């Protein structure tokens, strides 16, 4: 057991070993160690390593936050506006899902938007209709994103009306429930805030861990 304790004591930081190593070995020689003393030594070595390296995570957090913010500032601003539509499908299950997607594709086919800028997401199960459809369009300004989303929504509703006027049924009905919003912040702002927030959060965590350890050890 004493040999195991000496091996465990080698896990302490080198500078600590130089200062306290010999007297720590003398302590081990004098005591009758048990398993819990081995665990205690291992935990002590781990805490000592963390407290000695405290500057490293703090520096990493600050550098990470600054680099993340700088990278996000280099990105072009992208604003995303979204709108919500209630969708009713006559079909069920997989068939209903296909009907909805076909109807959306047909409606958006006429738009001049970059297809990569449009995101269409279905929320819910088509066989548990009605489901919610989220239409989101990205642009380089908040107003342009909102207008593009309004146009996309208009196309979807218009396609639905044309089908209804012809007396046909596509099996899908759309009803707008929330108009296109004016985005308040761009994705670049969100990325920058996430980078800074993550860095500061890590910094606060490291400070709490080191602070609580120091308090415990000295009282």
């Amino acid at each position: 057991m004493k040999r195991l304790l000496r091996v465990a004591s080698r896990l302490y930081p080198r500078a600590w070993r130089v200062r306290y190593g010999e007297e720590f070995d003398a302590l081990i020689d004098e005591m009758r160690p048990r398993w819990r003393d081995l665990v205690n030594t291992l935990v002590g070595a781990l805490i000592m390593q963390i407290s000695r390296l405290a500057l490293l995570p703090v520096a990493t957090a600050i550098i990470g936050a600054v680099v993340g913010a700088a990278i996000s500032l280099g990105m072009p601003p992208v604003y995303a506006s979204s709108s919500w539509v209630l969708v009713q499908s006559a079909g069920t299950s997989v068939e209903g899902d296909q009907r909805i997607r076909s109807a959306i594709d047909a409606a958006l086919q006429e738009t001049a938007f970059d297809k990569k800028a449009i995101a269409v997401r279905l929320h819910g199960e088509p066989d548990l209709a009605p489901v919610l459809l989220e239409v989101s369009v990205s642009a380089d300004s908040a107003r342009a994103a909102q207008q593009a989303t309004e146009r996309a929504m208009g196309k979807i509703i218009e396609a639905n009306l044309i089908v209804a006027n012809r007396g046909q049924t596509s099996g899908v009905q759309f009803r707008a429930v929330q108009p296109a919003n004016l985005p308040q912040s761009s994705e670049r702002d969100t990325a920058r805030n996430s980078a800074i927030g993550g860095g500061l959060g890590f910094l606060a965590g490291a400070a709490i861990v080191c602070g609580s350890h120091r308090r415990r050890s000295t009282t």
Partner: protein
Amino acid sequence: MLASLADGEKHGYAIMVDVQEFAGVELGPGTLYGAITRLEERGFIKPVQSGDRRQPYRITAAGKRYLEEELSGLDAIVRTGLRRLRQA
């Protein structure tokens, strides 16, 4: 640990035994030397010259002041608690 050193210098094992006797707390070697490291860094204890491998430590003036403050705080809590228990 500071209370253990209050009546004179001691080395690590002696502190360990003393703390167990007067406080009923068993200090592991990692806990003991973690505390010794911190207390020395804060200037509350100092190593004493010794030819032995076992390094004795003594409490400093700053350590005594800190110990007095901590014990005074604890004493106030103990006296208040006992008084309220008697009144209840």
